[in-house]
């Protein structure tokens, strides 16, 4: 019976308290004992705990004894709030009927509040708005309730008020979940259709799929077919997440859980695919997911050339757990064999790199991130250029177009001028100004993606003291005056540092990069000229002077062990270097060099 099931995602702008609210729901329903409780329990990845943000959506099933005397099965999904991970949110929304929209009582409606609300509306979900952090002295629940009501409709009185920290209002919220979210549909006797909304690779069990059963029933031992790839398998195990994995005999309509088939052939498992049973197969798969469109591209290369195959394997496995990651092999003259990867943003790029390094024990260098350009050749042929290397020579090039995005920024009204100034500097074209309330303005711009993808967000935050937020979506390509800037180390172009950039900013990039590299590249046995060039024209130049001294003054009886250890440590440090031609470049330089400050 599905009438006592409720499926919902918790959505919000970053840091508005989704994961903390999930903690309270787990605690209040007894899914976790007080002893096992820790803050943001569902943020179980090391990276999530270190950074204090959610990166992966996490599904949990809890049981709630409601005031009506019935026990309800609640399947909740905690989602990330950062704009780079909105694909995680979007996927979770197809596995639920409701969305709990959390809004920070001190911050009010922010960009991802809006963006995620629209996603939920598009997915046809029932939205229950909740104002969180009412325990804080700076909370303005009434004002924020008005704001929320104005974007989703309804009255401010319908907006629940809670503190995920103190637990205030959680009981009322649980009742509202039962009362206001619809029960899922679906018939247990229909052919099985289960949506794969996430997956990961387990070293021992192989691929684990997270599924939401829409119709029919899936039991342990059933023969199943993955409809898009045609893969035939057996359900070795089905279970639920409490949040621990717990085996169950079967999952019925409306229920979420996991499925293990023992398949090792990981490219035949796709998030968004529909699982059906072979004995009574469904004819139509579920709609599935739109492939996310990568926004930024960057090369990932193993420091040790031998690790190329391990990197391929790691990417394949990571992709199971991060469907928004795309990659294709790439060769770099400086860095050897690697992959050109597509990411949803710079944070996403950073996280992928770190997960690969940590979870798969790889040492990686990454190259200058780039957006995808459209290059029209003199032959009329149009190329998508995802890497500066692929840009045709100037004489073969008829024109370049760059991607634009529509940027929606939300800011308190006193910052409108500041925000507009920043957008203007980034070649933005003003769209609409929209007052959500007298204090809060939505400012829309069309801006080249390349201008916002790098440090725009940091700039926006710092210039508005953290009060502005943004969201963006692609709006197509426009012609642009672009140049390819090459960086030469010791006369050799290092493709990893090349970039395509607006002509007016080429000099700033070139001189910033050469200065940066001069600081990052340690002095070596010879002078190392560092040049930035457009074609054969050098636009900036620095030199790393040859090292002149590499000796410790004293080494006597008392210093020998210490001195030896010091030398050995320094030697270890050298392993974190990559040879580029005859120049040793620290791995970190590939990352740090790209952090050019806005000037």
């Amino acid at each position, binding site marked *: 019976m599905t009438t006592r099931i409720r499926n919902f995602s918790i959505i919000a702008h970053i840091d508005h308290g989704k994961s903390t609210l999930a903690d309270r729901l787990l605690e209040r329903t007894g899914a976790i004992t007080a002893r096992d409780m820790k803050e943001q329990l569902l943020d179980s990845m090391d990276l999530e705990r270190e950074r204090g943000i959610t990166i992966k959506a996490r599904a949990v099933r809890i049981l709630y004894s409601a005031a009506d005397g019935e026990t309800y099965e609640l399947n909740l999904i905690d989602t990330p709030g950062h704009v780079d991970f909105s694909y995680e949110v979007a996927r979770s929304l197809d596995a639920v009927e409701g969305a709990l929209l959390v809004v920070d009582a001190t911050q009010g409606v922010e960009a991802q509040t809006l963006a995620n609300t629209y996603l939920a509306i598009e997915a046809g979900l029932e939205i229950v708005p909740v104002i969180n952090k009412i325990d804080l002295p700076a909370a303005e629940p009434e004002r924020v309730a008005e704001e929320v009501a104005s974007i989703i409709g309804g009255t401010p009185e319908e907006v629940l008020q809670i503190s995920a920290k103190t637990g205030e209002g959680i009981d009322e919220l649980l009742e509202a979940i039962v009362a206001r979210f619809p029960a899922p549909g679906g018939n247990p006797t229909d052919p099985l259709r289960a949506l794969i909304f996430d997956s990961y690779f387990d070293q021992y069990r192989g691929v684990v799929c997270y599924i939401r059963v829409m119709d029919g029933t899936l039991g342990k031992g059933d023969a199943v077919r993955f409809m898009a790839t045609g893969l035939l398998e057996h359900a070795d195990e089905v279970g639920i997440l409490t949040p621990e994995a717990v085996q169950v005999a079967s999952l019925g309509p409306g229920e979420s859980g996991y499925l293990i088939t023992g398949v090792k052939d990981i490219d035949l498992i796709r998030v968004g695919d529909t699982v059906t049973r072979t004995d009574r197969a469904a004819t139509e798969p579920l709609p599935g997911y739109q492939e996310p469109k990568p926004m930024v591209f960057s090369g990932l290369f193993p420091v040790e050339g031998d690790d190329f195959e391990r990197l391929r394997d790691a990417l394949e496995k990571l992709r199971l757990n991060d469907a928004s990651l795309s990659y294709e092999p790439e060769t770099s003259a400086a860095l050897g064999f690697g992959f050109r990867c597509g990411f949803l943003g710079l944070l996403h790029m950073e996280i992928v790199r770190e997960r690969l390094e940590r979870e798969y024990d790889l040492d990686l260098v990454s190259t200058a991130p780039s957006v995808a350009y459209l290059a029209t050749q003199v032959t009329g042929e149009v190329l998508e250029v995802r890497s500066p290397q692929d840009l045709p020579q100037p004489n073969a090039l008829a024109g370049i177009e760059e991607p634009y995005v529509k940027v929606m920024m939300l800011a308190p009204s006193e910052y409108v001028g500041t925000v507009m100034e920043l957008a203007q500097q980034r070649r933005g074209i003003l769209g609409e100004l929209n007052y959500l309330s007298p204090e809060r303005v939505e400012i829309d711009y069309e801006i080249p993606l390349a201008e916002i993808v790098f440090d725009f967000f940091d700039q926006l935050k710092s210039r508005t003291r953290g009060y502005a937020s943004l969201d963006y979506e692609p709006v197509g390509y426009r012609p642009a005056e672009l140049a390819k800037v090459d960086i030469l180390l010791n006369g050799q172009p290092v493709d990893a540092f090349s970039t395509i950039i607006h002509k007016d900013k080429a000099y700033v990039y070139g001189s910033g990069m050469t200065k940066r590299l001069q600081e990052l590249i340690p002095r070596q046995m010879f002078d190392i000229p560092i040049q930035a060039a457009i074609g054969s024209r050098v636009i900036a130049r620095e030199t790393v002077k040859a090292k002149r001294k590499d*000796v410790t003054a004293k080494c006597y009886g008392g210093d020998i062990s210490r001195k030896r250890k010091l*030398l050995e440590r320094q030697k270890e440090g050298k392993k974190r270097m990559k040879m580029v031609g005859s120049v040793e470049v620290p791995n970190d330089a590939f990352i740090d060099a790209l952090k050019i400050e806005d000037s």
Partner: protein
Amino acid sequence: MTGQPDPAGCYVHVPFCARVCPYCDFAVVAGRDELIDRYFEALLAEITMEPEAGPLGSVFVGGGTPSRVRPDLLTAVVAGLRDRFGLVDGAEVTLEANPEDWSPERAAQLARGGFSRVSFGAQSFDDGVLAELGRLHRAVELERLVDDSRAAGFASVSLDLIFGSWSESPESWHATVERAIAAGPDHVSTYALTVERGTELSRQVAAGAPGPDADDQADKYTVAVELLTGAGYVHYEVSNFARPGHECEYNRNTWAQGDYLAFGLGAHGHRKGVRRRNVRRIDAYLEVIESGQRPEAGTEHITGWDAELERAFLGIRRAEGVEAPEVAAALADDFEAEGLLAARKFEIQNGVIRMLDPLFTDAVARVVLGLAAPGE
């Protein structure tokens, strides 16, 4: 090296200083002078706890500032060593001294008590630099040190100099070296000022104060080498120069991976492939000895290929290099060594590894220490 092993050296540490210099990371104490007598009793006790060794080839009483304590305490240590182990004929017995502590009377007393060599922490002949280094003496006091010491009976006199502090101009350093030469020592050590962890200097630098500059130090090093070798001193180790026959025997032995005993706070010894070190906290040192135990803080066994690599990394600091055929062979095949060989920073000839440019000794040492044993 055949038959009898070379006689062992011996290091004795005297940690007491008037105050701690900003760059110093030795085991020192300031403001604990009330412990001096107790400390010397402990030293003598520690000497009796050391297992038997043959007569000592050299003794080095360093610090700290040994010259601050009463001469009879110092000469008692020499006597204690002689009683326990014996000293070979003509053994070098060095005392480290700060110029402000020196007087003809003290010098005579120490020479009579068995010290044959004195090494002064002269550091600079520029009062501005001395002040920056936190030293308590003036340049003028340095002029007579050498003559006074010889007159008192010291057979060998050495001056330590430090270059590359922030306030030192190239001219100042040039003058320091010239005036040091004019003072007529038998031996000169020139040390690049180094920012050691945990020192006042490292805190200042971390807080944004200008630290030593590698290029400035390379220039000054080159100046020192030119002036000193031009004046007849042999550049026998990275930082050391001596008139022929006046090389420091105690240090020569440690660079040759010889054995040396060690007594006192934080002292390091090396006997038969075992390195041991003493505790570095003075109260612990005193209490342990007074309870009848050795104040050992740890040991490390250096054997086989490891010992051979260590011998090579120490040996390349000497002008004559080190004869180590297996290490030399491995080094000749090493990819990283290639660049250094090509740049003529060092050479390998008949199994001898020798620096051509001592300023790159660590670059070679790092490669040496990373070499795999033959057949691995």
